[in-house]
């Protein structure tokens, strides 16, 4: 499933311009240092962390999209950096677990 298809099925709008990639996995983490050891290329990252250094880490491992849960919105400079990196940024109002179960229901693991 592509990022755009996931966004459409869950009803999310991207905050950043992004390259529409085929999703290859999911990683959930709120630690940017953990992301470089755990997240995977073309994966989606589910997090509460909106700090700019999260994008620096996500870009290094070629993450396809970041979903901020519990309605957390990143600052404008975070969105700008993600757009330059082609990483989709989405905000979901639900909590991490509820979002994870949505992904499982859609067959994304």
């Amino acid at each position, binding site marked *: 499933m592509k990022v755009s298809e996931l966004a459409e099925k869950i009803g999310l709008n991207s905050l950043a311009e992004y390259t529409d990639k085929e999703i290859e996995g999911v990683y959930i983490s709120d*630690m940017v240092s953990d992301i*470089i050891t755990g997240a995977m290329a073309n994966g989606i990252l589910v997090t509460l962390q909106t700090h700019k250094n999260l994008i*620096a880490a996500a870009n*290094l491992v*070629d993450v396809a999209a970041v979903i901020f849960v519990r309605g957390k919105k990143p600052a404008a400079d975070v969105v700008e950096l993600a757009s330059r990196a082609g990483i989709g940024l989405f905000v979901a109002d639900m909590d991490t677990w509820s979002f994870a179960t949505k992904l499982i229901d859609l067959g994304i693991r």
Partner: protein
Amino acid sequence: MSTCSHAWSMVNIRNGYLVVEGCYKCKARASFFSTEPRPPVDDYQDGEHFWTYLGSFQAVKFDLACDDCGQTVDLDDMMGLMLSTCSDPDCEVARIAKEGGKGTWVYVALCADSTHASGKCVSDAGIAALTEYFNGNIRDANKKVVVVPCTKCKSIDTCRGIVIADTGLTDLY
């Protein structure tokens, strides 16, 4: 010289704290990685330096090992990675990013001693392995990562960039 083209994997992943200290006499900065449950905060004298605790951030360290030939590259000398956003025309890191063009992302591998007084920085083998590892995992054909040692920065204390460390994590709760 090895003829292996290397398929790097992360090994020996350690969680801990990146502790940053400053010398109040010469203004040098230094850092080390601590795996203690609480990072040390004591001031102490080491030769000419009088080190004072400046802060600590949750961080992770790792080494790289080749799945094919078994070679391991020790990255103990790397304290962190910083995405360069430097645009100083006199800085070599900024020049490398500019020459690389769109899609090139320069990450600076930070060593422990910002003064480089000892002449040491992250090893050439470490820089090469990090570059190969991260680029090996990238699927996007238009994206390239270049890892450089912090000696390439005109001044690591003033160079602009985004350090991959958990600086804001405690602000969440």
